[in-house]
């Protein structure tokens, strides 16, 4: 099994688009946190952590690319050749294939989230000094929340892509929702139940000051997001196991 995960890591990290995603994930939150911290005199309890909710874009791209790369047609002239045919002829068990792929994704995104969160916390502390959120056990728990949020978001993106077999739709929707216009957030202003959508509920794990009608504790938020991801993954696995590759 470790050999299979190693192979999947080589496969994922051999993609230029995966490295672009890692670059985005490493830079977005620390850079925005630096700009925000430098330009404001007063900082809220969520300084740095708000930014980490945007940085998840890197995790989204990784989740999408890990799956969409399997289905990318080789070239304009060749119609049927996709990496998935190779993947399933070297590892015929579809369940095992997905477990291994998820494991590799979790490892890469987990490490990426930890690095991005650490960098963001350090930057926020050094720029804001005494005005920065206090560090302590709370910070460790929130960073854990960030790592979980990124990992779960990557799995969600991968699960959706497994159903669409193309990265365009999930990438567009998930990235736009996270960066440009948060449709889910706007919706939550109108419909309180929307606070329980995966991205909003999950962010409660590390963002504490939310203008919202719904009170959701960090652990509850994490569980709600996990439930969403589990449902999407179960559906995606069921479709993938039944369909012709």
């Amino acid at each position, binding site marked *: 099994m470790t*050999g*299979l995960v*190693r*192979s*999947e890591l*080589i*496969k994922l990290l*051999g*993609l*230029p*688009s995966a490295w672009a995603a890692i670059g985005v994930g490493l830079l977005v939150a620390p850079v925005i946190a630096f700009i925000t911290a430098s330009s404001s005199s007063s900082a809220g309890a969520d300084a740095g952590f708000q930014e980490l909710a945007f940085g998840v874009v890197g995790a989204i791209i990784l989740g999408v690319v890990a799956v969409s*790369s399997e289905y*990318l047609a*080789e*070239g304009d*002239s*060749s*119609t*049927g*050749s*996709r*990496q998935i*045919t*190779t993947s*399933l*002829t*070297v*590892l*015929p*068990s579809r369940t095992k294939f997905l477990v291994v792929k998820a494991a590799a994704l979790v490892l890469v995104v987990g490490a990426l989230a930890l690095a991005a969160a650490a960098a963001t916390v350090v930057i926020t502390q050094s720029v804001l000094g005494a005005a920065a959120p206090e560090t302590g056990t709370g910070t460790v728990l929130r960073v854990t929340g960030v790592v979980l949020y990124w990992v779960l978001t990557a799995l969600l993106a991968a699960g959706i892509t497994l159903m669409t077999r193309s990265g365009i739709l999930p990438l567009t929707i998930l990235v736009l929702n996270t960066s440009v216009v948060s449709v889910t957030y706007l919706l939550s202003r109108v419909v309180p139940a929307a606070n329980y959508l995966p991205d909003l509920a999950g962010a409660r794990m590390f963002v504490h000051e939310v203008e919202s009608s719904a009170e959701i504790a960090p652990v509850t938020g994490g569980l709600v997001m996990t439930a969403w991801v589990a449902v999407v993954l179960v559906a995606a696995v069921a479709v993938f196991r*039944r369909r*012709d*590759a």
Partner: protein
Amino acid sequence: MITIEHVSKRRGSHQILTDITFTARPGRVTGFLGPNGAGKSSTLRILLGLDRAQTGLARVCGRPFAELTRPLTTVGAVLDGSGAHRSRTGRAHLRWVAASNGLPRGRVDEVLDVVGLTEAAGKRVGSYSLGMGRRLGLAAALLGDPEVLILDEPVNGLDPSGIRWMREFLRERASAGRTVLLSSHLMGELAETVDDVVVIDKGRIVSLGTLAEVTGGHRSLEDAFFALTSTSGSSW
């Protein structure tokens, strides 16, 4: 040894394969012949567990493909194209494939050498010609030095010297006691290469046997093929 028994497949209301039964034996090159769309690729994809059949069983060395734990050491398969992501280099593709089956990294350079891709190994697959892509696919199939080789249209996209090389390569594998199953719609290219022939047309096996048996009273395998399949005369 490859055994396919009573395999049938329907896609929607379209019957793609009906009761496909044949074997490919060790030490022989078996040609799976038929016009485009006859069901050759579908049969091979079912054999490799990529597509599902409604009924029937396909086995490689006595076991369904999906039950093989390190399949590359038993079966090497080349379907169309290279099977590699276009933004990887040829070598990077072979590296992950080798790692997936616990094969030593040294095998990567060995198979690159066998298929003559050593010089292009550092280039991205997207820049490969069709023929180079096929060679890369073959290199991946050879990583585990398998008992059985399965090739879908192996001479497609190859230049004349590539075709000649492929023929000799496949004959050598069979001489060494390996099983070789290849599909093709090009009869002329194959007559000198195959020992056994299975002819498929419109999803049904229409003839099978040794090359001599299938050629029968016809002047050539090509003549026999056109007499046996729906392509005869109609398109001209």
